[in-house]
């Protein structure tokens, strides 16, 4: 029964998530939030365990979306094929990028993934098959009916991602990854294949991202090089850090916090008396303040900080045997 305990919150979350789309009017916002959660759950896991930042993770979302666009629109394959191929291609791409870069010091991966994102954008803007600058329109629908179906599909994928991640965290692999987090040299000497583990988590996070990209391509049937700019990539990183790296729920909480923050700032910026530049100014300032404050004062992020505060409180209340 203990083995199932971690999955209960996931089930509760799934049930709650089923209700939310029926209550919200702006399904696009819901969809984007869920898609971000899918990406950030994976990214948070990677950054938490590998201790390196992937600043260009939107590249894998883009690859996923592009796969769907090319296979389904340009090559005419059935939508389901696109949906299933996207995460696979994204994963393979991640292995190709990660294998050399993950050996290097952290900032090389950070800039390297950013470079890959810009190169993906470049390829999308020049190669006709990939959109040639105007983008690919008219991607055939995956599901009949309106947006609601896609939202539920995305939620299903998110729950699947949470289950897979939880399973990973509980497994021997997860223990090895936690050892990695403590000290790479110690982990290596206890037999944890450091580089291979990092690549595996990196690839898994890319698979999640690719899935999210594919879903977004069906939801808004237009994919261009501007669909996934570096700012989106940075947003994922901020969401992961704020929520708490290496923590499943950190990803969820981080996305919620930042999404709500952005909506609030967006609303504030439309108030009378503010200059036209208030919108982007507040957005970037919001990103900056949240990121820097969390990094300096809550370095583990929101969820882990709450968890450790809770554990400390419980330790104080429970009388110790030592007396």
């Amino acid at each position, binding site marked *: 029964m203990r083995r199932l305990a971690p999955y209960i919150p996931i089930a509760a979350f799934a049930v709650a998530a089923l209700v939310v789309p029926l209550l919200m009017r702006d399904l696009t916002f819901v969809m984007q939030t869920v898609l971000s959660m899918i990406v950030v759950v994976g990214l948070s896991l990677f950054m938490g365990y590998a201790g390196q930042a992937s600043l260009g993770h939107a590249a894998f979302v883009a690859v996923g979306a592009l796969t769907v666009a090319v296979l389904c629109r340009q090559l005419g394959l059935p939508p389901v094929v696109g949906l299933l191929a996207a995460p696979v291609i994204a994963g393979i791409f991640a292995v190709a990028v990660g294998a050399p870069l993950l050996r290097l*010091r952290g900032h090389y991966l950070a800039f390297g993934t950013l470079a890959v994102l810009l*190169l993906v954008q470049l390829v999308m803007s020049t190669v006709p098959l990939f959109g040639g600058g105007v983008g690919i329109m008219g991607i055939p629908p995956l599901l009949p009916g309106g947006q609601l179906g896609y939202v539920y599909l995305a939620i299903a994928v998110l729950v699947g991602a949470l289950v897979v991640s939880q399973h990973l965290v509980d497994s021997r692999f997860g223990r090895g990854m936690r050892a990695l987090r403590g000290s790479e040299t110690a982990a290596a000497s206890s037999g944890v294949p450091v580089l291979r583990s990092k690549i595996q988590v990196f690839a898994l996070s890319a698979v999640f991202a690719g899935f999210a990209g594919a879903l977004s391509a069906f939801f808004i049937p237009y994919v261009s090089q501007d669909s996934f700019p570096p700012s989106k990539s940075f947003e994922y990183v901020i969401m992961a850090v704020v929520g708490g790296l290496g923590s499943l729920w950190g990803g969820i909480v981080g996305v919620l916090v930042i999404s709500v923050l952005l909506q609030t700032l967006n609303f504030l910026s439309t108030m009378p008396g503010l200059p036209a530049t208030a919108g982007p100014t507040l957005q970037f300032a919001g990103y900056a303040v949240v990121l820097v404050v969390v990094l300096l004062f809550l370095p583990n992020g929101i969820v882990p900080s709450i968890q450790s505060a809770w554990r400390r409180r419980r330790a104080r209340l429970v009388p110790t045997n030592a007396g």
Partner: protein
Amino acid sequence: MTTFLTYIASGLAVGASFALIGSGFVVVHRVTNVVNFTQGTLTVLGGLISYSLLSMAIPHGLGEVAAVLIAAVAGLLVGLVTLSRPGTPAFVALLVTLGLSFLGTAIIILVWGQNPVSPPGIEGSIAFGSVSIESQRVLIVVVTLAVFGAMWLFFERTDLGRAMSAAASNQRAARLVGIDVRRMGLAAFAIAGALGGLAGVLLAPTLPLSVYSDLPLALSGFAAAVFGGLSSPGRTLIGAMVLGVSGQLVAGYINGSFQTQLALVMMLVVMIARHRSLTTEEAK
């Protein structure tokens, strides 16, 4: 032939500014082990401030110098926040500088908006044999070489420069000898701010800068620094020149808008090829 030489010349000018940005990365990384993501933002800031000062009829020379000094102060502020908690791992410090670059972006949008601006530079052009090169571009190369020379003198021949090199070389021993390592780190950030700001000031007349220029500039500068293993200013200069010239040649003979991406491809190739010598290290 003349077109070819013109491309080389403008390539050297662009490369020179990459070299300045790249050496900013190198100085900070050597002394603190942190990669300063605000390097591009500081460059844009330098260019924009010089634009504003010159527009307010502050004389040439004075306006540019003031812009560089302000950029140095901005760099120092970045350093103060980034180094505020001793023992911050390099991974976290990189993200802190990322966050500060957003703050810089917010300030830039607030003050200057989102459109590119270009201050007046030096007018006219100089003839080198059969080739005529814009004076501004010549200025960029000359100033960059002078600055690199000055940096060499500073790090090799002055006590403060030696102390910074010492802090970069062996933190433990530096502390033992009485060097305030944190202060050296702050000095490195201030110098990086000045270098980036100078790059922006020199570039802006030929290449209009806006808030969105910061990422391509940072990446190009970082690509140049990668050539030098993030530790050698000399090799950064060479790498930057190679990047600049090849970018211009590609722009001229093939297509104009791929300079940044070409730099990125070359950077990735170097990182992948040299991965054996650029292995993981614990943060200082």
